[in-house]
């Protein structure tokens, strides 16, 4: 039950994109097409869970040695290596999966959402299971926002957007209204 509430809270109430402001760059950049967003969301979910597990273990080590301040450096190194490894392996093992998800992998290294969630897991003092659930539901939240958003953008492609706001500005404005709508979920858990 607690975990279910955690999922709902993370996906809807404290949506990683719309209220935590993490992973905005891919949110704006890769949201032109619904299909691409689906691939991106899946890739993020995969890496986010994996990275959370690995950094969770690293953190145990850091805490043991009393060098928690090394968090940023070690996390990013590990995440970067991890992503690259996944990419290489995926390319060989399952080219189909690679062409569906793999192309998003490099983009994910420099995505605040992954590192951000890893750090948040630490700050919220989760144990491993809630940490994984938390990471996964953040990825879900990211996917929810991204896919909805790309649907809107695909539709806007057919609309007559005034020149000044075409492109990036309108994307932000849509995100703003979406964020406003999601405020409705405030305190739902």
């Amino acid at each position: 039950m607690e975990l279910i509430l955690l999922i709902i809270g993370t996906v809807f109430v404290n949506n990683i994109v719309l209220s935590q402001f993490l992973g905005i760059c891919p949110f704006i950049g890769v949201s032109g097409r619904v299909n691409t967003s689906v691939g991106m969301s899946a890739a993020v979910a995969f890496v986010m869970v994996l990275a959370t597990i690995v950094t969770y273990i690293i953190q145990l080590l850091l805490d043991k040695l009393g060098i928690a301040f090394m968090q940023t450096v070690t996390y990013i190194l590990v995440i970067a290596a991890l992503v690259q490894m996944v990419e290489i392996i995926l390319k060989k093992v399952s080219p189909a999966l690679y062409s569906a998800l793999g192309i998003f992998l490099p983009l994910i290294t420099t995505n605040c959402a992954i590192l951000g969630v890893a750090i948040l897991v630490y700050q919220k003092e989760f144990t491993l299971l809630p940490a994984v659930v938390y990471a996964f539901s953040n990825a879900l939240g990211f996917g929810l926002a991204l896919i909805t958003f790309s649907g809107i953008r695909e539709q806007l492609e057919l609309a007559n957007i005034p020149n000044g706001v075409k492109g990036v500005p309108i994307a932000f404005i849509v995100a703003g209204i979406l964020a406003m709508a999601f405020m409705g979920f405030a305190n739902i858990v």
Partner: protein
Amino acid sequence: MNQWNNFLKGFIKENPVFVFVLGMCPTLGTTGSAINGLGMGLATTFVLVLSNVFISLLAKYIPDKVRIPSYIVIIASFVTIVDLLMKAYTNTPGPNGEPSLYDNLGLFIPLIVVNCIVLGRAEAFASKNSVTSSLVDGLGIGLGFAFALTLLGAIREILGSMSVFGWKIAEGFAQLFNPATEYKQGDGMIAFVLAPGAFLALGYLIAFMNIIKKRYAK
């Protein structure tokens, strides 16, 4: 390249926020007030300048295949240094118990490491240019970023809390509209302080900059 132009380009022509739309998370997440925006901008500038300088120094010696990991480590180190320094020296709460600057920026300080601007400049500029150029480039882009964040912060603060850099402009201003309203107590449109306002304000700001740029180009 003329260093002055090199410096200036970060403000308008190659402004990381308005033009490249990079580093959006801190841009949105830390601009609830002008001062936070400025703080975040300066912290990023610090990392950007130092990593630019170091990478332009070291680029020659780093083999191609490991350059990205090496750069990341270098950048991450500077980020950690900023983090430590800010934790030590900008962590004093305000007189009425307002959260400290460090608390306000929170998560976004370590996240400088994944800010695309930093790695992007390292790779695209610093690794190929002289130390001075890289320094100026880092300063220009960094301050351009800081400028954008401060501007956005100021706009959101003015609209959202009727103050700027903490200074209340509300009192006199609101009376112009309707002295009778609650407004004179200095409420702004709170939506602008909240998440939606960040997106909206940034959207319109970029649109405005686009239009200006187009006019300017003509």
